[in-house]
Each structure stands twice: as C-alpha cells, then as structure tokens.
C-alpha cells in the first residue's frame, strides 16, 4: 500500500503569501523583503524549536525560555570580545571561527543553565500548568535581573564580523550578507533536527514521547532522562538563537529574549505544539508577513502576528502540523 502523501499545504501557503506580495512592490524590494523575512524567520525558528519540543514532550510551558535567549547572547558576547581581532579581520575563515566559538559558548552556557532551570524550577511543577507559568516567569525575571546586575542595564554593542557586514548587490537587488548567513544557519539547524528526529533512534523516542510519554515508559524506556536531555538541547538552541539575534541587532539588553518571547509562542502555537516542522513553517510565515506588512501597511505591522495566528487557527485549529496526542 502507498504511504500517504506529505502534507505540503502549509508550505504552499508560505510560497503563496510571498507570491501574492510581488505585484505590489518592485522586484528588488520584494527580494530584499523576502530575504529579511526569511532571515528573521530562521532566527525565530532556532529560538522556538527547542521550546516546542519541550512543550510537546514534557507538557511544560516554559516562560523562562526568553531569558535563556538573552543568556546565550551575553555568553556569545563574552567570547566575541576577546577575539575582536578575528571578527575585525578581513578573513572569512577567522570571522566564521569566531562565530563558531561564540555559538559553542552560547550553547554550552545555556544548555547548562537549562539543566539547572529544569532541576530546580521546572521539575517540582510537572503537570501543573498554572504553577509552571508562575515559576518559569519568576525564573526569567531572576535571570534577567542577574544579567542586569552583572552586565549593567545599558545596551551593550556587539560587533558583527567583518565578512558578514554589508550587502551582496546584483543590479538593483541588495541582500544583507548577515541575513543570508542567518538563513543558511537556520536551514542547517532545521536539517540537523530533521535528521535526528526522523533518522535516529533518539528521534524516534522523542517523537513517540511527544505523542504519549506514559506509553513510551510502558515499553521500557526511562523517559525522565529523555526529558532532561531535550530540555538541555532546547535551552542550547535558545542560546544559539540569542547569539544570532544579538548580532543581528548589534546590541544586547537583558530583556532582549523576553521581548521576542511572544512571537516565539505565537510561532509554536500556529506550528502545532510539539511539531518542529510546524515551528519551521510557522516561523517563516510569521516573519514574512510581518516584513511585508511593515513595508506595505506599516500601521498593520504591529498586529500582523496576531492576524496570522487567528487565520491559521481558523484554518487548522490544532496548528499547521498538529502532533497526534493521546
């Protein structure tokens, strides 16, 4: 028997949205807007993908995720500062080496912070959504205040590596190099997550656990360890997203993660809670619509995320790619 065809409708919607805007703007402006939307979408995806897995697998509403984004950005900055000569050098290899070191530091620090967060703050409130919201929000405030105390309340500038500054220009079309870098990194993260989830035994356990944790345990798997591992990995992805987001803004503030958290939640809701593929498409859709709206109807831009969420949930109430749940 043939396996059912993949559901491509949400991806087609993203393409349709992009195509629908083309008649209203010049082609160079459309390319610039689309590249910016894709880059923003990839950054949001990286920040949101860990959160959606944590919610899907552990049923935990982690409002502290935004604070981990900020921690990642600051951890990356601490690495980038001493290697300023690398980021300032006119060498792509040195620039990318500095970014790789910063990304590693951001992921290690936020992964460790996530481990502490899960053990001390989240663990006592498993299965209690209201308490999860309260304690994780409290945890986020504590982390933000600690960043404030250590680094000060003022924005800290971050230098973007030299090779990623400026734009690639072809005729009238200009696309910022950093946005292309963000798109490439986002695609790489998505591909890696897809391979792990779809092609490995660990991924199989995670997908099964997202659907029905108790049944996975009844098959003989100690799912608590999996929970912790996914929480740590999700936190590390938040850190990687924080590094990207910080370099994009070229400045860091303790509240930068909290500011993006609402968008992250919208993305994981419209993607389908627990769905990495839905999170990916949802992030692209949200960011593209926000960018197009910001150009075509700036007054509507603030409401674009909400409009996208309402439209998607009217179409698919459980999200773009709903995860089958018990």
């Amino acid at each position: 028997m043939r396996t059912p065809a993949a559901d491509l409708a949400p991806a087609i919607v993203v393409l349709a949205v992009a195509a629908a805007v083309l008649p209203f703007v010049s082609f160079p402006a459309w390319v610039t807007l689309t590249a910016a939307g894709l880059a923003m979408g990839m950054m949001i995806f990286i920040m949101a993908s860990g959160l959606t897995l944590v919610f899907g697998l552990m049923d935990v509403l982690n409002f502290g995720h935004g604070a981990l984004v900020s921690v990642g950005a600051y951890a990356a900055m601490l690495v980038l500062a001493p290697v300023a000569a690398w980021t300032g050098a006119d060498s792509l290899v040195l620039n990318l080496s500095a970014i790789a070191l910063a990304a590693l530091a951001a992921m290690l620090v936020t992964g460790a912070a996530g481990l502490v967060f899960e053990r001390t703050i989240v663990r006592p409130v498993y299965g209690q959504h209201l308490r999860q919201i309260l304690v994780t929000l409290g945890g986020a405030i504590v982390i933000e205040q600690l960043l404030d105390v250590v680094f000060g309340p003022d924005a800290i500038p971050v230098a973007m590596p030299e090779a990623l500054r400026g734009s690639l220009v072809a005729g009238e079309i200009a696309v910022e190099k950093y946005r292309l870098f963000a798109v490439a990194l986002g695609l790489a993260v998505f591909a890696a997550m897809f391979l792990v989830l779809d092609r490995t035994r660990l991924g199989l356990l995670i997908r099964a656990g997202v659907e029905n944790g108790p049944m996975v345990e009844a098959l003989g798997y100690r799912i608590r360890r999996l929970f912790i591992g996914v929480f740590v990995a999700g936190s590390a992805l938040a850190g990687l997203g924080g590094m990207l987001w910080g370099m994009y803004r070229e400045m860091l503030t303790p509240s930068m993660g909290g500011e993006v958290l609402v968008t992250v939640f919208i993305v994981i809701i419209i993607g389908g809670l627990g769905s990495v593929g839905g999170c990916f498409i949802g992030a692209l859709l949200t960011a593209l619509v926000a960018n197009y709206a910001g150009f075509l109807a700036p007054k509507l831009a603030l409401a674009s995320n909400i409009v996208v969420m309402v439209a998607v949930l009217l179409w698919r109430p459980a999200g773009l790619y709903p995860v089958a749940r018990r």
Partner: protein
Amino acid sequence: MPEALLELSGVHTHIGKYHILHGVDLAVPASGMTALLGRNGAGKTTTLRTVMGLWKASGGRVRFDGRDIGALATADIARAGIAYVPETMDVFAGLTVRENLLLGARESRMDPARLDWLVGLFPALEKFWNFPAGKLSGGQKQMVAIARAIVLPRRLLLVDEPTKGLAPAIVQNLLAAFRELKSAGTTILLVEQNLAFVRTLADHVAVMDDGRVVHEGSMRDLAADAALQSRLLGLALEAHS
C-alpha cells in the same frame, strides 16, 4: 492451580482524591489466560495500570515472578517482562507501523524470526508497514498495539478490552492470535467485556466489583454455572455466545 506469575495482595489505588481499588487480591497463574471480568467501573483497568506502575498502589503488594515490583518505575516493570496493551490502544499515531514495532523491540533492529511470526499472526502488519499508525482502522491499530507489546518475548501480557468496537471478522483474527500466543507460552491477563470471546480463550477467571476481586476460579466452572454468572456479572454467558 499452577504457581502464580503475578500476585496482588491487598492492593489499594487512589487516583487523586478517589479511592478506586479497595484491597485487590489476585493471583495470575503462569501460562494460560486469566480473564478479569466485572461491570464498568469495577476497577479492572485500574488494576492493570497499577500492575504496570502507571498508577502507583497506595497500599498492598504487587509481586511478579516472586519479585516485589510495586515500587518500580513503569519502565523497569516493562523490562522485568510485562507488556501492556491499553484499552485506548495508544499506538503512536504519527509513527509508522514499523516505527511502532521498533520502539517495542527496544533495539535498533527487530529479530527477523520474531517478526515473521508476528506477521503470521497479523498479516496486515506487512501491508501497512510504512503507513502512519494513526491512519489505520481500529482493528488494525489494535493489531499494531498487540504486536508492539509482544515484538519482544514477554512473560506476561496485560491486555485491556482488545475487542472493543471491532468488527466480528477482526475479533476472529484476534481470537486466533491470542490462541497462538497462549500456545507459545505467554501468560495473558485479559480485561474484556465480550464474554463470548473470553469464554473461548480463558483458562482462569477473576471477577471484580467495587474495587475488589469477588470471585476467582476456572473459566470452565463459571461457564457451567448460570446462577453464578448471573450473580457475579448480572447476565449469563450463554446469552452472549
């Protein structure tokens, strides 16, 4: 009666503020099938879930193969050799049939001989091998759930209402599969409302009422005693043949 493989002594289970099991005493003999009967709400499903550790007993003792398993985590109970097929089947809907079975096997690959045996029991498995389990019919899902539970050889299989809502032809398939499982030496504790199904399969029977076991004995004796059936179950098995 043969030596008990599973033994519950004075087991109490609370779910939240509700006291569901009120001192269950039950012995499941090694080999053969024990049917757990009773009206809706008697505590049959809670008994299976308590054995599996999905709900923790608040009192009493659960012993499996002479070992106290009441304090073990669900995963360790499964690894001790007990498999569970819940009433809701709980196949992983987004995973293919192959992936569902792979999870049951707990290894990166399944034993080919065991797999051949399973496909012999449930030929539909092969047909839907790479099909998402969530897209299957109720009967096919039930086959996947049972196959997933026994893809590794188990000492004891707990099955909760496998025929619920299934077409008669599928029920006949399940009947044949359970017979095969019994002859392969698997001990089965079966909760079932389909008395005709139970009557043809079960060797032993326990009847629950209000969170307690109120009768234990052989299936043959219960099937031959219409008055006992009426008193325990409120109906006669003949009426369900």
